[in-house]
């Protein structure tokens, strides 16, 4: 999946990156060995997982002020969300086992 590398005449000078936030195109979800599985029912939408997620991978509905899930494209599986959740809404499950299930 490696993108074709560009020649020196094709890229902006000085190593300047002109597309802000394009790291969003780099999916870190592949790093994950354990996945946080969220229990919607017990969630009180306190947003502790959201404020502490180091990968900005907690998805929210801004208008309705609701937590809506984990963005698995970026979640690295650190487990911080599970630790900080006051209602223990997350279960960390091994990715391999989840695939087997």
């Amino acid at each position, binding site marked *: 999946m490696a993108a074709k590398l*560009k020649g*020196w005449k094709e890229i902006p000078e*000085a*190593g300047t990156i002109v597309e802000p936030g394009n790291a969003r195109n780099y999916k870190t979800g592949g790093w994950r060995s354990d996945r946080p599985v969220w229990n919607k029912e017990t969630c009180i939408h306190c947003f502790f997982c959201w404020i502490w997620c180091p990968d900005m991978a907690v998805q929210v509905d801004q208008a309705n002020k609701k937590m809506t899930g984990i963005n698995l494209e970026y979640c690295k599986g650190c487990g911080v969300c599970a630790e900080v959740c006051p209602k223990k809404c997350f279960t960390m499950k091994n990715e391999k086992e989840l695939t087997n299930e």
Partner: protein
Amino acid sequence: MSTIQKNKLSLTGNQAAAEAMRQIDPDVVAAYPITPQTEIVMAFSQFHADGKVNTEMIRVESEHSAMSACIGSASAGARTMTATSSQGLALMHEMVFIAASLRLPIVMPVVNRALSGPINIHCDHSDTMAERDSGWIQIFAENPQEVYDHMFLAMKLAEHPDVQLPVMVNQDGFITSHGVEIVDVLEDKAVKDFVGEYKPKTPLLDLKHPVTMGALDLYDYYFEHKRQQAEAVKRAFGLFDKVAGDVSKLTGRKYPMVETYQFDDADYVIVTMSSAAGTTKFVIDSLRAQGTKVGLLKIRLFRPFPYKIISGLLKGKKGVAVLDRSASFGAFSPVYTEIMNSCYYLDARPNIYPVVFGLGGRDLTPKLIESVYTGLIGNKFKTDQIEYLGVRE
């Protein structure tokens, strides 16, 4: 030809640099004092204190921070200048390379002074020569007039959209920096019109187009960015004569990459830079009066280096002495090395002799220069042996 009003002022090289900075009126100056550059910063600070410039000044706590602040300022999109010497330039070293690689058109007068140790405050070129691979354009001035003129040349060349590179305007510490000469100074407006408004390509202050500068650049792209940098320096080389020509239109003075004096029919020539060229011209005049065909080749533009022009000029000469004001221990000095590089492919290659002179401000007397010409004529030098001019045995 020129209709521009000029004033004649008595200025030292440092004052000439400061006067040019006042007229350029950059957005930001971040500087730290060091002998013998101090007077540039002091004079400019006074202009600032008297409201004669719109510049914002940053009185940094070191030269490393001076260049770092300049990098911050220039990357934000401001026209930025600083000035330094010797240890200051050495302390900046890391940032000097980064300024060039980030393609920031900072202009910096460098008042050349010997590097420690032992500590010395007087002129030689060891400071600037240590930066010759940094990616900066390096211009050398013979006298205060050239210092003054080179400043606009530098600003214009640095900011040219096809260049976007920093420039060092070198002058000899104390010899030029503290020597008073009559300098033709342009009207403020002429300078302002000449340098124009700086239009940075991707300034950080352009909030609508947020860019990331100075990213971690590994084996996939670092080389490509270095290749671009090489091309930019090449373009600077291609544009130098045009920009210098534009300065000439204002001043009536010419600024070729290399200058010659009594050269065409000369059998024996000295190649050198900066104030040494002035003394050499004086010696040439007296030797010529005695019928000796001697001449001078003075290098103004050291980076990028004008190889072809130089080889074309040196072709067929009987003997060439290259006078370097810096030493490269265990190797030949920088100017000599480049002259050798220039001449390698010549069919009629002159004998080229390495001469090191003037370290730590050791005076280059007319007598010493005369001894070089006499040595050339008498075939007394060896091509593979450095002649240390004026050192006691």
